């Protein structure tokens, strides 16, 4: 099985770009990725593009060929929808395509959200939940994760202050990241006193509504060698899992088996385990989601990750720095772009050209965790940098 190398990555700044279309955002991300890669557009053999709510926000479906056109690529192109894990899935399909014999694949995603009202965005995001049993009961996405958080508190203990430390940590990580939507710190008190969105979550427990795009140029080992590419980061493991769609049908609301399956598969392919990971970018769409991710990936036993940020274990100087990019919470969460953005940020962290690389100079192995819905789907990738 050939190694898959990340030749180049690119992102738009994530934020409030109300008037910018998804196609415009993706054009910028791919231009940055091709410049970073030093690979010609003509070399691309296939495009995988993640987008979730294009029909809601832009009345735009069938976005695969549109994405390729905006990237300046003439190649078969497919849009993937796995809710907030859409571009994580796009990366995974790109990896598999290269393993199947392709030399160059463009992957990425884009989402425009802020042209909708808050209620409109809430409605669009709710489409990732069960339309019958959840949405018709008034469940929103903050609401769904709130149900999981309250169940977690009941089952394992923990409280809002534990979750607040996650938000504080991720905001602190984003302060110097010019691609992040929010480059300011928060205090625990500010998180706890914020306007309630859906109890127990206040505003600062929730990732923001964001516009943005991300892209990566994936190449085979042989292509990288033949073209003398500077591409030191490899994707050594990929995994994807699914779970029962609605929360009510799950054996447990405090475990995320889709992430467990995806993590197990990615670790097995890479031939490593959780103890080998130096840094992680996980899907903190809501503060409790980071807790569930760390437990699903095996970094903590069930019920143990709730206090990880508060204890300093996942902060920049902790034993496992988590979401050094700022995570979805502070970097932003244009849903279809998020999975590949995690790849982009982790690649730079490992290469040494991320603004936060200096805090993890010896990091060699990183992991991304990208979840869709209430983790009814999840994609995990292991990245390793040449020593």
């Amino acid at each position, binding site marked *: 099985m050939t190694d898959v190398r990340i030749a180049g990555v690119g992102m738009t700044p994530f934020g409030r770009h109300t008037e910018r279309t998804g196609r415009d955002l993706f054009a910028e991300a791919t231009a940055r990725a091709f410049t970073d890669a030093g690979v010609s557009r003509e070399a691309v053999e296939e495009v995988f593009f993640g987008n979730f709510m294009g029909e809601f926000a832009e009345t735009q479906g069938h976005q695969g060929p549109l994405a390729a056109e905006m990237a300046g690529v003439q190649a078969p192109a497919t849009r993937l929808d796995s809710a907030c894990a859409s571009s994580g899935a796009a990366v995974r399909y790109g990896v598999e395509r290269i393993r199947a014999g392709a030399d160059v694949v463009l992957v990425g995603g884009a989402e425009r959200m802020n042209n909708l009202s808050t209620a409109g965005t809430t409605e669009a995001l709710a489409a990732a939940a069960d339309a019958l049993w959840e949405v*018709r009961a008034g*469940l929103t996405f903050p609401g769904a994760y709130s149900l999981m958080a309250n169940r977690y508190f009941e089952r394992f203990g923990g409280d809002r202050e534990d979750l607040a430390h996650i938000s504080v940590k991720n905001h602190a990580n984003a302060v110097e990241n010019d691609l992040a939507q929010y480059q300011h710190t928060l205090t625990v008190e500010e998180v706890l006193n914020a306007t309630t969105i859906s109890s127990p979550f206040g505003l600062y427990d929730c990732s923001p509504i964001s516009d943005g795009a991300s892209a990566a140029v994936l190449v085979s080992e042989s292509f990288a060698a033949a073209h003398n590419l500077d591409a030191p980061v490899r994707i050594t493991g990929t995994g994807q899992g699914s779970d029962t769609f609605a929360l009510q049908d799950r054996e447990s609301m405090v475990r995320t088996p889709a992430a467990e399956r995806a993590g197990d598969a990615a670790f097995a392919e890479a031939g490593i385990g959780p103890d080998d990971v130096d840094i992680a970018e996980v899907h903190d769409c809501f503060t409790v989601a980071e807790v569930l991710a760390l437990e699903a990936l095996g970094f903590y036993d069930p019920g143990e990750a709730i206090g990880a940020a508060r204890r300093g274990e996942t902060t920049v100087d902790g034993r496992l720095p988590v979401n050094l990019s700022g995570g979805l919470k502070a970097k932003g969460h244009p849903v279809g772009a998020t999975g590949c953005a995690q790849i982009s940020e982790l690649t730079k962290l490992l290469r040494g050209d991320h603004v936060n690389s200096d805090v993890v100079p010896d990091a060699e192995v990183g992991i991304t965790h990208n979840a869709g819905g209430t983790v009814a789907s999840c994609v995990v990738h292991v990245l390793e940098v040449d020593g």
Partner: protein
Amino acid sequence: MTRDVGFDDFLDAVEAGDPQYLVDNDGRTHLPPMPYDPATGEKGLTERPVPEPGEILTHTTTQIATPQFEDDTPYVTAVASFGPVDITGQLRDISPENVEIGQAVTLGVERSETRDERVLVFYPA
């Protein structure tokens, strides 16, 4: 609003006082619509009455809603266990601050304030 087969039938049954869940050949439980046994593909799962009262497993009070419920806020959504099946619904006839995990509830159907659409609800038992 166009009916959704299975789900609206379940709401009809709640209104009639006789909601049913489904059991497949392996004894696993489902809520409708589930026309085929997911393990075997055979049609026709066994119907069993949903036992009441249920018990609240978790709940949240929503302040920012979708357009379908924006005039209903704040409202409490909960998942409650009714024996072999868990069900999602809105809590009625109780203040949000008084809702507790473990509280006993029964099933009902009400109409939303915003769009006058049917909503599966729980009442304190």
